[in-house]
């Protein structure tokens, strides 16, 4: 194994509030594709009720990490525990139980193109083979209402939807079984700024209403600062820093400096500071 020069982890802060056991626990995780090492000795904890964002350059394995948490890919070494169960050693029943407790929003939505929007959202509910059809119907309409899709869109096919509506429908489907844990892969990629802001607000509302734990991968700094309660920076094959955004920004490392404090980052940061100042004022009043 070629020895890679790495800086040790610079920052590891847990959420401010009192937290219990982590919902997702990643320990000593290695990922190799052929001879390329993507993750080397990676550790990460995700706690109940937080919104954790994973950031990093292209090819640092953010999406791979997400897929490993979902059990879609196996790490070469190390373990990923979700809800306290090791995902690669879980029995099929345990795995099914886990899968009923999490939702995933794929980057392209991944709506079933042969089913209507309504059937897409009803699909996981019907698959339980227990709920009566009238409850499913009302629950689907409720979920659509929550993500801001009117009932007139229910019978449309995914190919007839705009990009923003596909994301909303996919989010409604991810929320269909009332998950405790929601994974978002680039939730605002491909949306215009207005839609993207609306989507961020939507996720915030849902997070508050449903008491969700959210794990998100994004490149969009606006989304990142607006939503995250903590940020995990993936670089040099491990989690370089994890903590609230203001603490992560203070870490002195070339990647972090470049990623957050470049011209692109400055703008987003100004917005963040403005909002913080506003929040402070509000809390003083």
């Amino acid at each position: 194994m070629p020895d890679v020069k790495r800086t040790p982890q610079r920052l590891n802060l847990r959420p401010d509030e009192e937290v219990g056991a982590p919902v997702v626990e990643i320990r000593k995780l290695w990922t190799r594709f052929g001879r390329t090492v993507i993750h080397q000795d990676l550790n990460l904890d995700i706690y109940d009720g937080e919104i954790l964002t994973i950031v990093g350059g292209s090819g640092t394995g953010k999406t791979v990490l997400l897929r490993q948490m979902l059990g879609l890919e196996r790490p070469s070494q190390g373990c990923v525990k979700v809800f306290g169960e090791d995902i690669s050693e879980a029995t099929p029943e345990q795995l099914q139980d886990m899968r009923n407790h999490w939702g995933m929003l794929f980057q392209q939505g991944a709506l079933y193109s042969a089913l209507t929007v309504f059937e897409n959202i009803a699909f996981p509910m019907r698959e339980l083979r227990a709920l009566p059809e009238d409850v499913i119907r009302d629950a689907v309409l409720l979920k659509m209402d929550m993500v801001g899709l009117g009932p007139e869109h229910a019978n449309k096919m995914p190919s007839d939807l705009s990009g923003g509506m596909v994301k909303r429908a996919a989010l409604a489907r991810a929320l269909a079984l009332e998950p405790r844990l929601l994974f978002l892969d680039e939730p605002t990629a491909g949306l215009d700024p207005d839609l993207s802001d609306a989507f961020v607000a939507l996720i915030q509302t849902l997070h508050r209403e449903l008491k969700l734990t959210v794990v998100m991968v994004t490149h969009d700094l606006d989304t990142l600062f607006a939503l995250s309660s903590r940020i995990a920076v993936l670089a040099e094959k491990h989690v370089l820093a994890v903590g609230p955004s203001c603490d992560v920004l203070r870490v002195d490392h070339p990647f972090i400096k470049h990623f957050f404090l470049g011209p692109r980052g400055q703008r987003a940061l100004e917005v963040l500071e403005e909002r913080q100042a506003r929040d402070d004022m509000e809390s003083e009043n």
Partner: protein
Amino acid sequence: MQIENAPILTIQHPESGDHAATGQSVVASGVWQVHTLSRRGVLKGITRTLAALKHKDTLAWDLSGIERLDHIGAQMFWNAWGKKRPAQLMLDPRQEELFNRIEQASGLSLARHRSSPLQWIIVLGAGILNFFEHLKAFIGLIGLVVQDLGRFIRSPRTGPWREISANIYHSGFQALGITALVGFLIGVVLSYLSAQQLKMFGGDIYLVNILGMSVVRELGPLLAAILVAGRSGSSITAQLGVMRVTEELDAMLVMGISHGYRLIMPKVVALAISMPLLVVWTDAMALIGGMVSAKVELGLAARYFLQSLPEAVPVVNYNIGLLKGATFGVLIALVACHFGLRIKANTESLGRGTTTSVVTAITVVIVADAVYAIIFSGVGF
């Protein structure tokens, strides 16, 4: 995962001496979430209880004892209440939010689409119109390919040579193995069956005539065409369909590259070239199979077989076989491209389009074969 308490409904009867106005009360407890509700047997009991309680407006409901409630659990109550709040209801502040949500969404309803009693006429008409639409598009496609061929002949140097060569490789060279296997086996079977019959009246030597004529004139071209329709036809349709799904077709149009010239014409030309060659190959394999079988079954020498073949089968039959091969190749490519271009950007359409394409291609090939049989009915005997 933690063990969760099952959802429970308890009906409390008013104690004697209680106030007359208070009727029964229903107390819910446990975890009313989709996961606990969907456990085996849980829902059935609850649905039965709730159904029995439906339309009893005097009931008092107490949900504040529920550990956790989600939208689906709340929806169960809401439906049991006849989609309105009961007069006496006790809720947690958190549950209040849930029911506010549900109340807000309960006005929504799905649009029903009505079906007309004349539905079958509509279906029939749509089917016929669809057929003519396909026919029109197919003729349009033939016109397009002819135009592109004209363009290709006028300036052959800038033509899509690379695409043609790649398509010949994929649809011709890579099909050699499967056509050889199938041709050989059919030859063996045919020769064996014919030999059985011919032996009965001592016409052993006519085996060469039967085998030669049927293979060279009919079976060779047809076998090759059916195999190519299954192999290359489906792959052409699927390729074009995926290109539609991934917007590659649109990307080509945007760059000003015509689909016809770069995608369709090369495939048609390539199949028109490789199919006659495959026909020759299949013919040869089937005859070798027949020869082997004749040697084993009738003791007919290979030398005799080869010597009498030219006399038994006039050379015009061979030419008819080649012509059939080229026609079938063109037809398969056209049908495959036609269906490939009509695929819509979803997975179901892709699957259906590919199936239809292969079935249609094989049907069209057999129809064309029948047409040739009529045209050349007096030739080559």
